């Protein structure tokens, strides 16, 4: 249903989500982000190029980290969201609360700027 991969590049933790995130699989996303934070990463980019679907359970995971990331000065940027996926964020007004970029190059640039 969902595969999540992690790859570290230049001090940035890149989390790639492949497949669909729903009420049964959102826990995997949550655990992956928690692991990244636990390992001390301050710059996280989330590759959504292969994310085909996200329900409120997945949106809730991203939302639940907003405050914690502010407190700990952790920057997170999402990129590569398909139109139908970004629409889900937009319906709830979440697109304005998270950092979202077109591609990986922009995401890495923004995450570096945000963590300055």
């Amino acid at each position: 249903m969902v595969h999540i991969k992690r790859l570290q590049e230049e001090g940035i933790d890149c989390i790639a989500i492949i497949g669909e995130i729903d009420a049964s699989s959102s826990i995997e996303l949550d655990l992956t982000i928690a692991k990244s934070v636990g390992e001390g990463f301050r710059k996280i980019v989330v590759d959504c190029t292969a994310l085909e679907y996200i329900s409120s359970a997945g949106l809730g995971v991203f939302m639940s980290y907003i405050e914690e990331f502010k407190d700990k000065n952790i920057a997170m940027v999402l990129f590569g969201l398909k139109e139908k996926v970004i629409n889900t964020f937009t319906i709830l007004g979440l697109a304005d609360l998270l950092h979202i970029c077109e591609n990986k190059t922009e995401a890495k640039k923004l995450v570096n700027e945000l963590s300055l």
Partner: protein
Amino acid sequence: MNYRYKIGCSLNNLKSIRDFIRTSLKGHGISDVVMNEIVLALDEMCSNLMIHSHHCNPEHQLELHIRIPQKGDLVFEIIDESNLFDITKFEEPDLGNLIHEKRKGGLGVRLVKKIMDSIEYLSKDGKNVCRLKKKIG
């Protein structure tokens, strides 16, 4: 066209529910974005029902009916036997509070209300029916 699907109340079945909805709506001139919105709203309704009314018991079943008329609204019915989980009576939490409290839930009902044009509950043959309608075009 009418489509029907019956499935156990396990969250692991949500993927097959979504696939059923996509297959049913395919070929009816519905855009990718609108199709995803409908899939999302019904996924949220079914997962809420599974969690809150059936405690994810796979032996409990729910039915999903989809009616695609030649003209007019798309009609979706979710039918089950349980305590009613009426989302129209559910108070939507404030987005700011959700972020502040680091809560992961409470967004699904908001999505359903934004996506669907009407939501009503009725009782048929002793079963709960949640009927949702979506205008197309």
